[in-house]
């Protein structure tokens, strides 16, 4: 049943449905409402778990690491500076192949200080070895959170559920919260193959020499690639139970014959959907929603783009000195096609800048421009900058 809920409140309820035993978090805008809502569920006795208010994000990640190894399902959430402070632990969790689920309430990274949304934070840790799933709306964030636990525990890889800060976390909208029965049917109790046990002692996190490090990395890389099947099957199985799907690795919508597609990640998708109605383009346009950024679904993307002439990649982060992050990966994957589409790469909505419906005609107007530049921040207001910085 559809309920009017704030995104953060819905996430807290989704997390509770997964029956975590240990939750550790440190407050940071815009993640705060999630952990506040969880604290309330714990205080009201609606969620039985150890809720640990730690002294930093670094410890939040470390606490859930320790707890997961000791045999408990865990949860944490953070954003922005918190992700960066956690960075070392994030690599460590992934390298140890520990199934942890974390929400990233995507937010810009300082400096300059911004509390508002973009996706620079999770993009900064894209190489940490976590699965990263991006949500287009709060319903997806709820469903993905539940799916994330099954994916993590089956693959022994940590999963970061990325949802746009404020744009999703602080938005009240209609959300269907699954029943406990649905969640329990989908998600078995926590099991971890290397749970610490005094009766059968294991040493975890040991030193490896060059004789083995390469093999450990290879196996981690393979595990992430193999996780694609698990991400798809989790979405399918959850669909069978809930009647909702989130689009597996990526999903495509729009007219079959379209030769142009806009690829997005996160919550801007809905705005583009309505923009297509409000500003009907001259040519048919498809929308591609990239849900799984890690693992990067190159094969699925190639299949989705093989008939296209143009792919416009719109992202909410950049790699200064290089350009787009997702755009470059899309370009690399599609270059393997016999007839690769042109890739146009733009960033927009950095540090909370509103992305209006009018972005659609702006994006489409670039198709005929000479593509002498691979990447542009499309909503930059150059007149605000001194001449030499433009």
């Amino acid at each position, binding site marked *: 049943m559809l309920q009017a809920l704030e995104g953060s409140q819905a996430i807290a309820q989704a997390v509770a449905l997964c029956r975590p035993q240990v939750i550790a978090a440190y407050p940071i805008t815009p993640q705060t409402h999630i952990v506040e809502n969880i604290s309330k569920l714990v205080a009201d006795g609606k969620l039985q778990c150890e809720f*640990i208010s730690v*002294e930093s994000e670094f410890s939040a990640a*470390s606490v859930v690491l320790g*707890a*997961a190894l000791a045999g408990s399902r865990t949860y944490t959430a953070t954003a922005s500076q918190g992700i960066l402070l956690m960075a070392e632990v994030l690599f*460590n969790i992934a390298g140890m192949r520990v199934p942890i689920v974390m929400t990233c309430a995507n937010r810009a990274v300082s400096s300059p200080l911004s509390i508002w949304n973009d996706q620079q934070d999770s993009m900064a840790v894209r190489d940490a070895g976590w699965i990263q799933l991006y949500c287009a709306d709060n319903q997806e964030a709820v469903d993905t959170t539940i799916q994330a636990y099954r994916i993590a525990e089956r693959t022994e890889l940590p999963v970061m559920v990325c949802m746009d800060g404020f744009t999703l976390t602080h938005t009240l909208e209609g959300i269907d919260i699954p029943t406990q029965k649905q969640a329990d049917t989908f998600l078995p109790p926590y099991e971890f193959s290397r749970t*610490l046990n005094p009766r059968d002692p294991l040493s975890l*996190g040991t030193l490896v020499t060059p004789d083995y490090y390469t093999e450990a990395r290879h196996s981690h890389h393979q595990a992430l690639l193999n996780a694609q099947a698990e991400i798809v099957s989790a979405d399918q199985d959850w669909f069978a139970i809930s009647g909702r799907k989130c689009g597996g690795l990526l999903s495509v919508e729009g007219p079959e014959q379209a030769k142009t597609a806009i690829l997005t990640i996160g919550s801007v998708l809905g705005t583009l959907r309505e923009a297509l109605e409000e500003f009907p383009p001259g040519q048919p346009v498809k929308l591609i929603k990239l849900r799984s950024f890690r693992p990067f679904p190159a094969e699925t993307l190639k299949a989705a783009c093989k008939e296209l002439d143009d792919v416009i990649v719109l992202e909410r982060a950049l790699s200064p000195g290089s350009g787009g992050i997702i755009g470059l990966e899309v370009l690399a994957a599609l270059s393997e096609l016999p007839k690769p589409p042109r890739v146009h790469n733009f960033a927009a909505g950095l540090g909370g800048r509103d992305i209006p419906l009018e972005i659609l005609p702006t994006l489409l107007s670039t198709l005929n421009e000479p593509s002498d530049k691979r990447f542009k921040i499309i909503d930059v207001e150059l007149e605000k900058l001194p001449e030499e910085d433009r």
Partner: protein
Amino acid sequence: MTTETAIPISKLRKKQPRFRGLESGHRACLGCGEALAARLVTESAGPDVMVANATGCLEIFTTPWPESAWRIPWVHSLFENAGAVAAGMEAALKAQGKSTKVLAFGGDGGTFDIGFQALSGMLERGHNVLYVCFDNEAYMNTGIQRSSSTPHAAMTTTSPPGKERMGKRHLKKDIVSIVAAHHIPYAATASIAYPSDIRKKVRRAMAIEGPTFLQIHCPCPLGWGHEGDHSITVARLAVQTGLYPIIELERGGLANVMPLRNIRPMTEYLKMQQRFRHLFTDDLRAKEELEHLQAIADHNIEIYGLRSDGGKDAFDSEGMDTVRRGGMRWA
């Protein structure tokens, strides 16, 4: 007829009365104080434990993959998060209704410096964890760099003596007092020179529900510059000179100290170690620093009331036990 013993070695090993959490065959240096301390701690703690170990010598020399010297569940995550990882393990065990005790191990770098915040958080939140700091007074794993635990005037590779310097310029951080200021039930110092004292303190900490802290002085022959077979002697002199007071603090207050019957001149301790050799030159500054170090030792003896009363107290037996002392610690 075979000449072999009728009982296989593996069975003999099982007959050993003592539980070993840290097995022999690890790769510590000759005379490593930390290895000895870790063995004593895990022996006394028993098998129903699990360990979160900070990055450091102890982690490196015990677990060169695919080998491990540990016979208890053991996890190494990072340098600065042993306190937090242990807290997570404890929370999970609590949620599962299990009574296994969680230990956290760190060196002085991982405890005094980089892991200090995670340690403080763990203590403040009251996790049922025994944190053991193996204090060898510098970053030995990376090649002897100064830490906030390095004693005043000691030479390390980042506090070398020279024309402008006489070794480390700053004082050793009083970590046990800082830890005790978290109002935890029990915090203590110990030394590998007094193994029965370590055992007793570990057993005591294990029996306490809540955060406890044990700081063990562990000579590092390589880092301190002494022979490997002198580790115990050096450790004992650190105590007997008053430079490393052995104390117990309960809920932040001084409870017991190990009394010194025969206080030794501080130079006896310093002279055994290359890290203090620049203090035994004609340099005027060397004389000053020696006086400074003597003042530190005298101060310890004073505020902790380390001087023995000459045997009137039956328990006042150095190295065998501690005695209850009020002291003037906070004065």
